[in-house]
């Protein structure tokens, strides 16, 4: 009898283990909660913003008692892998955060819903910056409602400027002013402290804006040709790469070791070109908090053309709650949600009438500059479904330039040649 008991227990254990193996894979979800409410899931990657989103969701749930919204937080490093896997597996979130570079590829694969008609009431053409709306448009259809955006400014460490006895940057600086100040700073800084940093992969914040200011380009309108070997493009990149050659920026090796953002955060870098998304990070670090401010990017060729990038809310094409998801999407893009997001203070809300809230959260900083150059700003490139192929080439070759193994001219020619091969292949030439 006793033996049988033992056998029975063992059998039971074995069965439970088997069952738990299976139940791990199933996870059937019909988009409803137990009490019959519609359940929406929003996938996102930012922990800071997750808190703001939850506050916003609370407001929405009060207005819509028959809906509950959950956020699904995945770290940036794994976010896209997770989204792609869950879409393949058929249980992806209903609302998905996307950026413009990814949105194009996802739209092409048909995993995002065409929301052109669904958000007609939001009148995105008139209520959101042109560049952003274009960024989420593919083949004439809209695939995401702009959520927030980032533009760039010249951040500076007041303490290092004071120490070196150099006057603070101003909004009307040119590239020449920046360079002159950097040279002056260098004389007054210690070992391990640097005036400015221009990393090989910092195009979004540094040279890409200058490329447009100078009349150069990265990709042409109809995505068939690259402007990487355009002399005007090369000239603009040279202006920033020159900082490395002249030794006023850390070397490529040093920046590989410690990212410029981290150097600035650690109080070792006097000036840094970066987006508004770094502000919360800087504020959380005692070393730099209260010691920095920001001005408009220095003008190049007389222009302050900047690069704009940002996030959008997209809808999973396979959502089980299409109607509710679209209703929620319309709310997210509306005045109330955009105001709440802006007041949360982590990002600049994309909606024109809600952009000012972000700067108001920190009157002590010169944050208005992030919305000053929107008219001229260009969307981050290369916005094509195969952007990662192009970026891989660009990174590898620019890394060689920055390491001093080839000249910038050789590098840009190589990039142009390889990009053109990819473009021709993808355009079916």
């Amino acid at each position, binding site marked *: 009898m006793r033996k049988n008991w033992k*056998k029975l227990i*063992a*059998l039971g254990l*074995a*069965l439970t*283990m*088997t069952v738990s*193996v*299976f139940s791990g*894979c199933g996870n059937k979800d019909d988009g409803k909660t137990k009490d019959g409410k519609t359940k929406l899931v929003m996938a996102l990657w930012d922990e800071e913003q997750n808190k703001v989103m939850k506050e916003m969701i609370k407001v929405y749930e009060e207005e819509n008692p028959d809906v509950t919204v959950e956020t699904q937080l995945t770290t940036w490093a794994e976010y*896209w*892998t997770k989204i*792609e896997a869950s*879409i*393949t597996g058929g249980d992806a979130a209903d609302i998905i955060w996307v950026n413009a570079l990814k949105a194009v*590829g996802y739209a092409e*694969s048909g*995993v995002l819903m065409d929301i052109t008609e669904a958000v007609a009431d939001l009148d995105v053409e008139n209520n959101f910056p042109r560049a952003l709306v274009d960024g989420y448009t593919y083949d004439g259809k809209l695939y995401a409602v702009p959520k927030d955006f980032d533009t760039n400014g010249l951040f500076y460490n007041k303490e290092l400027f004071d120490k070196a006895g150099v006057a603070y940057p101003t909004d009307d600086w040119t590239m020449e002013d920046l360079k002159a100040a950097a040279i002056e700073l260098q004389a007054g800084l210690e070992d*391990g402290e640097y005036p400015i940093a221009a990393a*090989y*992969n910092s195009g979004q914040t540094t040279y890409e804006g200058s490329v447009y200011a100078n009349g150069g380009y990265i990709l042409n309108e109809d995505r068939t040709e690259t402007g990487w070997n355009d002399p005007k493009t090369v000239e603009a990149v040279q202006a920033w790469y020159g900082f490395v050659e002249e030794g006023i920026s850390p*070397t*490529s*090796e*040093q*920046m*590989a*070791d*410690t*990212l410029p953002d981290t150097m600035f955060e*650690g109080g*070792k870098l006097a000036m840094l070109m970066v987006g508004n998304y770094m502000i919360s990070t800087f504020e959380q670090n005692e070393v730099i908090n209260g010691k920095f401010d920001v001005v408009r990017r220095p003008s190049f060729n007389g222009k302050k053309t900047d690069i704009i990038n940002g996030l959008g809310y997209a809808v999973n094409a396979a959502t089980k709650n299409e109607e509710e998801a679209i209703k929620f999407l319309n709310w997210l893009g509306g005045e109330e949600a955009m105001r709440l997001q802006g007041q949360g203070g982590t990002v600049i809300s994309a909606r024109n009438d809600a952009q000012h809230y972000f700067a108001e959260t920190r009157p002590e900083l010169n944050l208005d500059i992030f919305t000053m150059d929107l008219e001229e700003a260009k969307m981050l490139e290369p916005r094509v479904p195969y952007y*990662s*192929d192009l970026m*891989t080439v660009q*990174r*590898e070759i*620019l*890394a060689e330039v*920055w*390491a001093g193994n080839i000249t910038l001219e050789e590098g840009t020619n190589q990039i142009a040649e390889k990009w053109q091969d990819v473009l021709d292949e993808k355009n079916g030439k």
Partner: protein
Amino acid sequence: MSGKNDSSKVYSYKEKNGKRQRNDWIAAYIFIAPLVIGLAAFYVWPFIQNVWFSFNDVNKFNVATFNGLDNYKKLFSDPALWGALWNTVKYIIIVVPISIFLSIVVAALLNASIKGKSIYRTLYFLPTVTMPVAVSLTWRWIFNGDYGLFNEFLGLFGMKGHAWLGDANTALYMIMIVAVWSGIGYNVIILLAGMQGISRSYYEAAAIDGASSVRQFFKITIPLVSPSIFFILITGMIGAFQVFDSIFMMVGPENPIYPKVLTMNALFYRNAFETGYKGYASAISMFMFVIIMIITVIQLIGQKKWVHYD
């Protein structure tokens, strides 16, 4: 006659035993079911899928279009593959022997009767139970060119520092140092278990015959733990061939030298998850599979020459 009786007795015993054996088998199958089902679902099936994917163009969302041998043609003309293969081979040749050598030395010392033995054992085992990500991040900071401890240390001897992980010529060696450091603990545990299984009587006999302790080590300890050494050699080689996390964490895609320190597995990851060519990535992993299999078969044959099972 009695013999015949005996054999019939044995026969009936066997019969009875057969039934019992069958019951035992059923029980045994139920016991291994969770493992077998897990293996089938998470190893065998993905492997079959991987073979199929390697003959397809697979996009980010696993939509596959058959393209025959295209992935393999691309594979053998991809300069990145040979770079990655060379990096991986270099890594194996350096990390595996050094790691095994040091592990044997440490295990032998820990097997001796020294004071505070268990403290040392814990210390050596700690890196093994520490998260690889935490290990990598800490070492990345130690090797930092401007603010790292390693350069501070070199500075004490008047040596000039260097951006160890920012230079393609040194980064891979730094990663190897960390790999050896963090791998010793596991090897030592395996070797210690082997060493403690050796009967004292061998050493007593050797001592009576006048063998020195060094001689005892080479003539008794090494041959008798050779199965353990063989085990850590095989698993170590396979592990080294698949190295990825330390490269990803200590150098990483943002680092300009990343393309130059890619190992096979990092190249696979890049194609599968960074650029999204899953079909091509599957071909890379098939290539890895074949190489690992060949190396392992060679080792299994070679072991007959030096591994003693007694």
